[in-house]
């Protein structure tokens, strides 16, 4: 058994290693080393915990067994999961952090002696407050992430579920959680503890159902943040520095990502949280119902345009991932490069279904990351490029966001695709994107629509090059 001071220092070391793990992600070169730091930090934390308990009784074997069970499930998932399913995976993982926090809190509540927190029915006030906050946030994270997972997986409809009195109801529940924590702390009643958990599970569920499928990037980031705060709450209860540091890191990380995602859609955080965008917006649907002329072409035309170009910018979106076209796309780009055509990729912050999703998908298809650019980096280049190849993206290219103040996406940062000499737009039909609005780009002089499946069209173009 090692002293409490000694273990506290090692928890601090593991907290610092976690900071370095995130620091490593500032560039792809250092990122792998960062991940290694994270693993070392985790091993230190676990080993120190064992040593500080120092009681290698029969229970110890079970701990190892459960780590092994969980670890093999986790490793199996990690190797099998397709990159397109990363958002679901991350949502699923968030729910596990939330539930683990809830379980630890339950355990500490039932058996506070094991944690040095007092006796059942007489838990130290500070610890009880921290514990109940950790449990409540954990429960919200869990049920919220489960809903997010179901929506992303397509098991549950991505359209917002709204009903009358939803917001007042949520507000009442949130206020009641505060009162429950207050009464729980003053009475130490275990019934109140269970009610608190039940109500927190309920509010997590209610908070996420009104948020539409298009807003999932924000939701995932937000739940990422919640899982951090839940961990921090438990960290305070256990007086564990590693957990407190990590909770704070993860909490702020998720919050920053939510902010970046909201900014990418030009929406306020509250607007997203209150939900119900797109599907309920009647006005936007009625606009521009009249038929406008569209130029459409085939793979041959597209290949001709690209062959005569000197620079091409690819604008990929989630549709590309759905069609599994990223590999075909990279083959097309390879052919273009052989013809001395400069190719780069332009990625909108909310392309894909979670922050940075499109970058991972392109990396998987062996696209070098130094050919992939963010919106701010590349937006000025569209004016000098010959061809923009839009594949699976829609709303993020809509010039209406710059011109029409009445449009629901007005003010959203968009890629200036229309400034290109010509635009090739791969799409199955003229149907609107997530935002439910028509894309003006379809009807521009210099736009050629390629109506086909993204993968098939890309392959056909490659053949014609």
């Amino acid at each position: 058994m090692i002293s409490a001071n000694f273990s506290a220092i090692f928890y601090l070391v593991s907290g610092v290693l976690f900071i370095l793990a995130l620091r490593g992600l500032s560039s792809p070169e250092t990122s792998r080393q960062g991940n290694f730091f994270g693993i070392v930090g985790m091993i230190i934390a676990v080993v120190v915990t064992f040593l500080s308990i120092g009681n290698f009784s029969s229970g110890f074997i079970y701990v190892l067994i459960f780590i092994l069970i969980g670890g093999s499930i986790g490793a199996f998932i990690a190797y099998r999961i397709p990159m397109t399913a990363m958002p679901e995976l991350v949502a699923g993982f968030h729910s596990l952090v939330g539930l683990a926090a809830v379980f630890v809190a339950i355990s500490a509540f039932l058996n506070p002696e094991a944690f040095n927190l007092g006796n059942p029915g007489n838990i130290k006030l500070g610890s009880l407050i921290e514990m109940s906050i950790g449990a409540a946030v954990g429960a919200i994270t869990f049920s919220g992430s489960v809903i997010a997972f179901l929506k992303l997986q397509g098991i549950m409809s991505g359209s917002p579920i709204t009903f009358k009195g939803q917001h007042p109801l949520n507000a009442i529940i949130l206020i009641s959680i505060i009162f429950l924590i207050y009464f729980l702390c003053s009475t130490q009643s275990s019934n109140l503890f269970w009610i608190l958990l039940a109500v927190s599970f309920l509010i997590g569920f209610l908070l996420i159902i009104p948020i539409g499928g298009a807003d999932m990037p924000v939701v995932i980031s937000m739940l990422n943040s919640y899982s951090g705060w839940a961990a921090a709450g438990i960290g305070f209860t256990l007086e564990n520095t590693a957990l407190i540091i990590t909770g704070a890191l993860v909490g702020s990380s998720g919050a920053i990502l939510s902010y970046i995602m909201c900014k990418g859609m030009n929406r306020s955080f509250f607007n997203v949280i209150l939900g119900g965008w797109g599907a309920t917006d009647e006005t936007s649907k009625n606009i521009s119902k009249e038929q406008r002329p569209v130029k459409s072409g085939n793979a041959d035309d597209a290949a001709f345009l690209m062959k005569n170009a000197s620079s091409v910018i690819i604008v990929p979106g989630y549709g590309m991932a759905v069609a599994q076209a990223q590999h075909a796309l990279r083959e097309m780009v390879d052919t273009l490069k052989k013809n001395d055509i400069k190719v780069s990729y332009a990625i909108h912050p909310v392309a894909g279904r979670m922050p940075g999703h499109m970058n991972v998908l392109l990396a998987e298809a062996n696209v070098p990351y130094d050919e992939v650019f963010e919106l701010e980096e590349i937006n000025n280049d569209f004016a000098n490029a010959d061809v923009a190849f839009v594949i699976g993206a829609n709303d993020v290219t809509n010039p209406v966001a710059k011109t029409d103040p009445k449009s629901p996406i007005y003010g959203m940062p968009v890629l200036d695709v229309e400034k290109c000499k010509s635009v090739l737009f791969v799409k199955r039909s003229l149907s609107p994107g997530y935002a439910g609005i028509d894309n003006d780009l379809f009807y521009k002089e210099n736009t050629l629509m390629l109506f086909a499946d993204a993968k098939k069209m890309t392959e056909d173009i490659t053949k014609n090059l």
Partner: protein
Amino acid sequence: MEIDPLIFRLSIFILSIFVGYYVVWSVTPSLHTPLMSVTNAISSVIIVGAIIAGLSGNSDNVFNTSSIFGFLAIALAAINIFGGFLVTQRMLAMYKKKKKNKK
């Protein structure tokens, strides 16, 4: 008068939020997905609490209500730790620079 240890923990917490703020802003946007999966993995350091909970039973009775919740939490956190770090590693391994020999 002595300072409550809670204040020290609160100081660590607040300062860590600031560290997190600056560190995360320096993460390149193309690595935001690995950022999320790795934060997932590290927040599962909650496993230390789960281990304490799991070992809270006495040697005659390894499984009581409290320790069962601990063991379940260990399994959940372990899924996340292994899954989170491994999937992050898998993703990061795919990020490659342009090959120099290709013009």
